[in-house]
């Protein structure tokens, strides 16, 4: 290598007082902060702060409005000797309570919630979720078989436990999933959305649909002994 005299040199040492010169090394890997196309930017002050304040004010106004019209429930003094029928958990746990109706407590109360939390945590660490390839972009025939088998097994399992309130939303999501596999790329643009969904989208949509249905059923459609009631017939919650 031929020694070339540059106006700068590397390896001066790191003492900033002795060597005030600094060289910026740009490595191949960029930090998260400079990744991607930034696009047009605005100053946070005032643009972001103004919008945040409006959001806050709208929220407070809505909240106060409802709090003036609606009263927080308060029942009789707690009495361990008088069990209400049905005894219900807070609404956000009623989906779990609905599952408890079908499955043993270990499954519905411990295993399923744990699996859900673990599933949430690991979402970003699986490439299939990160890349988000459309479900039917790969080997369509194979994937169709795999998903059909999973679905049949799931439906059979739910049917054995007679877990209809899980089965119905599962089928409601599985229908469009299987249907989307028959959509052709040159087909209607309206179906493009369905055709290009990745597997993570389908799983999350299935989870949300089942959770919402279970929570609604647990809140409004369950009466004494966790029997099915119609809320408009007056003996609901």
């Amino acid at each position: 290598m031929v020694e070339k005299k540059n106006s700068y040199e590397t390896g001066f040492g790191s003492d900033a007082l002795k060597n005030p010169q600094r060289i910026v090394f740009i490595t191949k890997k960029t930090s998260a902060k400079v990744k991607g196309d930034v696009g047009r930017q605005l100053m946070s002050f005032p643009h972001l702060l103004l919008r945040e304040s409006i959001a806050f004010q709208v929220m407070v106004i809505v909240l106060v409005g409802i709090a003036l019209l609606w009263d927080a429930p308060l029942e009789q003094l707690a009495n361990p000797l008088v069990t209400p029928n049905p005894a219900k958990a807070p609404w956000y746990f009623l989906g779990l309570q609905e599952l408890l109706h079908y499955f043993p407590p270990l499954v519905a109360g411990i295993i399923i919630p744990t699996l859900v939390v673990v599933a949430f945590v690991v979402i970003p660490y699986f490439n299939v979720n990160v890349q988000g390839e459309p479900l039917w972009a790969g080997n369509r025939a194979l994937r169709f078989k795999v998903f059909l088998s999973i679905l049949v097994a799931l439906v059979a399992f739910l049917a054995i436990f007679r877990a209809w309130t899980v089965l119905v939303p599962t089928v409601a999501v599985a229908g469009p999933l299987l249907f989307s596999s028959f959509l052709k790329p040159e087909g209607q643009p309206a179906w493009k959305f369905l055709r290009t969904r990745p597997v993570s989208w389908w799983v999350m949509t299935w989870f949300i649909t089942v959770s919402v249905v279970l929570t609604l059923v647990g809140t409004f459609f369950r009466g004494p002994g966790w029997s099915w009631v119609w809320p408009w017939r007056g003996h609901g919650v």
Partner: protein
Amino acid sequence: MATSSLAQAFGRLRATQVWKSIFRRGPARTNRTRSLAVFGNLFLHALPVKVRDKSLRVRATYYLGSITFFLFVVLVITGILLMLYYHPAVPQAYRDMKDLGFVVSNGVFLRNLHRLAAQAMVVAVFWHMFHVFYRGGYRPPREFNWVVGVGLLLVTLFLSYTGYLLPWDQLAFWAITVGTNIISAMPILGRPVRFMLLGGNLVGENALLRFYVLHCVILPLIAIVLVGVHFWRIQKDGGLTVKETFQEENGRKEE
């Protein structure tokens, strides 16, 4: 000329030494002073100095994360006020609820606001999470912040759940009894964990006190720390996600 004299008065106020000692910057008319307004302020420096105009659109976030945080602020304020009227004891806790209804000025409103904001926060936290998911906000480099978010979801649920017991009415007692019975289904650890949580085998005085401490001290502190990490990481991970459909992301591979 009311506005101009108001502006003049404000200008004179800004020229005072007291004002300058607090804000240490001129009026936010230049980008330099606007930047200073953000990073020179302890409470605002969690925010970026600049934001993409795309992430300011309502449809980008629906302000769900902010609203969740604002609800938390409302809950802290109303919660502290409620603490002034509340004794975590049996049956005094229930009497305090009655006092809020009949003795304390605006007590019903205070409790309504706290309960409503609590329910709304659970909804907002889930909605925020699903919205972030569908926008692909969990993808690198934001994967850890997603995990912090899952932690915040759990803390929110526990906060709401521990608060549920505090009125000590039938609704509270049986909801907590049903909920904590599930814990005993856990193999080996189930009963000890339930005993530790309730301070006994039944939902009683000890359970009320433990839930009170969890609800008012331990869980809010965890929430504040996690919220701090969550906000800080948004900046460090390169701001909010800009909407790219899954395909577009696939199309332009980063190198």
